[in-house]
């Protein structure tokens, strides 16, 4: 996975001053959380279901080998094939070989974050295949040569005007000369162009939201129906997904179905929830002749038994991104990784490296909102803290920050000096601060404090300090 997370700060700065982008971020930061809250509150058992989902995943990861073996056996019974891939290179090579075997030329894809992680499209296009994304959002960003902005809404940062420009340019070759701006017409245009692509496709590639060990079925969840078309019309269906997507039984699956759409988009259910097993049977009127599943490790087994193992519970709903004050301010592209927001800040260092992704676990205020909304209760803040510790241990933290943390730690060990220093700082702050709307704020700090006040004000702590109140017995 190629990442450009080193540029987080520059990207974030640009994103914050991009007004168009900020309008798009309203959808993630406000609309999605409101919709999630509204549907969740209509289901009295929602919180209890989250507990069940967490417990199922814990048991699941403790017995991952057993469930993967069972899944493999059931898929083969149904006439499907399983391929194992340790790395993205192995996975991409397997898919390429399967396409070659089918004498394929045209490939259609349904949205899959794992294939984004593998950079599968680039690989296949480099080998001369026509690869077309069919989820509307993914299709738009494919045409624009961008990375997904958000794991659920890859193109929601764009305006209808931007989509209109993109379609106008891209669809000329399909004989479409009229520039449409209306959203309904834009969707219609994509439908017409992609319908032909579906019909002419030799191979359909999908991801999988879940794999059911009990039955060997893969689960595809969409609102558009594009995954079902990809799994049905072409003569070969290839599923590319991560090994952690396996769940034990159909009863367990129900728990996830009840929380996934509610957490992701605030829907009670997505429009197409489909379970597929094997190629078409003799009695079937349609369906692919072959059914291949590529199970990808790509760093996942390295997370097992480590402090970030719990990240493998993730069901990619995107709720943590929508709840995150950082994501909803700087947007997905700032992260320089296909996985962004809190879940991306934990996944990316695991899949790429701590050194290249160090900025991401630091892009958090540790407010805890992500953990609060996570349907499988992943302790995201503590895992970001884990990566920060790793970063510090490996001496990757910038020297200024290390020096500052060192000084802070030293002061912390000398309570009288700590108290003197904070008192002096408090007096100094009050001297240079002013009152605005009833609050004391400092608008311009000297020395290293400049870094803070260049872009925001500092609220001056109220008196007396917590420590002196504690001493007086007023705070416990």
């Amino acid at each position, binding site marked *: 996975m190629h990442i450009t997370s080193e540029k987080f700060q520059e990207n974030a700065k640009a994103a914050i001053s991009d007004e168009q982008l900020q309008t798009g971020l309203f959808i993630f930061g406000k609309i999605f959380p409101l919709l999630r809250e509204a549907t969740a509150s209509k289901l009295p058992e929602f919180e209890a279901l989250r507990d069940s989902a967490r417990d199922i995943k814990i048991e699941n990861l403790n017995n991952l080998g057993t469930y993967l073996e069972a899944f493999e056996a059931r898929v083969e*019974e*149904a006439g499907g094939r399983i391929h194992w891939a340790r790395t993205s290179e192995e996975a991409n090579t397997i898919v390429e070989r399967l396409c070659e075997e089918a004498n394929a030329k045209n490939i259609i894809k349904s949205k899959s974050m794992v294939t984004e992680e593998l950079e599968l499209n680039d690989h296949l296009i480099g080998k001369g295949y026509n690869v077309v994304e069919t989820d509307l959002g993914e299709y738009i960003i494919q045409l624009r040569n961008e990375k997904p902005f958000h794991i659920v809404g890859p*193109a929601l940062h764009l305006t209808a005007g931007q989509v209109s420009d993109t379609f106008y340019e891209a669809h000329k070759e399909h004989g479409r000369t009229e520039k449409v701006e209306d959203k309904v017409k834009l969707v219609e245009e994509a439908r017409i162009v992609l319908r032909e692509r579906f019909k002419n496709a030799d191979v359909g590639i999908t991801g999988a939201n879940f794999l059911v060990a009990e039955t060997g079925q893969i689960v595809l969840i969409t609102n558009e129906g594009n995954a079902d078309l990809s799994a049905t019309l072409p003569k070969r269906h290839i599923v590319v997904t991560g090994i952690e997507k396996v769940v034990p039984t159909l009863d367990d699956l129900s728990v996830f179905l009840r929380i996934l759409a509610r957490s992701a988009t605030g829907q009670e259910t997505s*429009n197409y929830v489909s379970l597929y097993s094997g190629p078409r049977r003799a009695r*079937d009127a349609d369906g692919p002749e072959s059914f291949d599943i590529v199970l990808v490790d790509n760093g996942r087994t390295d997370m097992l038994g480590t402090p970030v193992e719990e990240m493998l519970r993730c069901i990619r709903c995107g709720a943590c991104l929508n709840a995150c004050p950082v994501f909803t301010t700087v947007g997905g592209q700032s992260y320089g990784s296909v996985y962004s927001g809190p879940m991306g800040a934990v996944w990316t260092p695991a899949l790429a490296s701590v050194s290249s992704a160090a900025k991401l676990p630091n892009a958090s205020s540790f407010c805890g909102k992500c953990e609060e909304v996570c349907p499988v209760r992943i302790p995201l803040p503590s895992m970001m803290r884990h990566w920060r510790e790793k970063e510090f241990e490996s001496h990757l933290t910038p020297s200024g920050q290390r020096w500052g943390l060192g000084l802070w730690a030293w002061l912390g060990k000398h309570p009288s000096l700590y108290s003197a220093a904070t008192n002096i700082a408090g007096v100094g702050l009050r001297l240079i601060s002013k009152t605005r709307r009833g609050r004391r704020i400092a608008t311009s700090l000297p020395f290293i404090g400049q870094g803070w006040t260049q872009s925001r004000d500092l609220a001056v702590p109220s008196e007396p300090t917590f420590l002196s109140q504690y001493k007086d017995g007023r705070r416990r």
Partner: protein
Amino acid sequence: MSDARNAIFAKIKAADAKRGKAAAPEAKSRLETPPPQLVPAIGKPAPEEARDLFITKAIELGCTVADCPSFEEVPEKVSAYLIEQESPQQVILPVDEELSSLGWLAAGLSVSAQTGSDALDGNTSVTRAIAGVAETGAVAVASSSKYPVSLGLLPDRHIFVLKVDEITGGYEDVWKVARAAKDNQGMSRALNLVGGPSRTADIEATLVMGAHGPRTVHIILIGDDQEAQKPA
């Protein structure tokens, strides 16, 4: 690439060892006898409430629902729906005796069994369903000789014919169908829960119907309780 398989399983085993426990035998028995999980009240409605819940949820998903006293009257209901939709009096049927034996021509409809993808474009399909899920309002269908999956994906309008007694509570009731197959060859390739018309909100989060699949989904509900309520 069995090397890859071995390597992945070796790493999983190593993690198990680190955790201090080998794979638990309970995992295997979990697969053989799946323990029930928490099912919310909405997933197990009382039988007399299931029908109304299903209708409500289906409509919330953007479906239309019509009641129909018997199978014989399905063509008339379909015809009425197509008039309302200002669509041609023409339907595509799967190879399904239960439907094809009905009086379509008498109701003024032309019938086609052409199920190639070009024939389905812009057309209306009429199919049976295996269940209606009251919890969500979705209709369950399973691939078979009687149900080509593309019939629920390519036409502009999809009409489901569902019997009231096929309405079930929640997901768990649909899984019974998947589990009824003796082996994986016997299991349907596709089990689709269709929750209304195809839609997208990928441009500025504005909901637009008819993304890739049917623009409208109509459910004809057979044996509605009006009959049952008539005095004997």
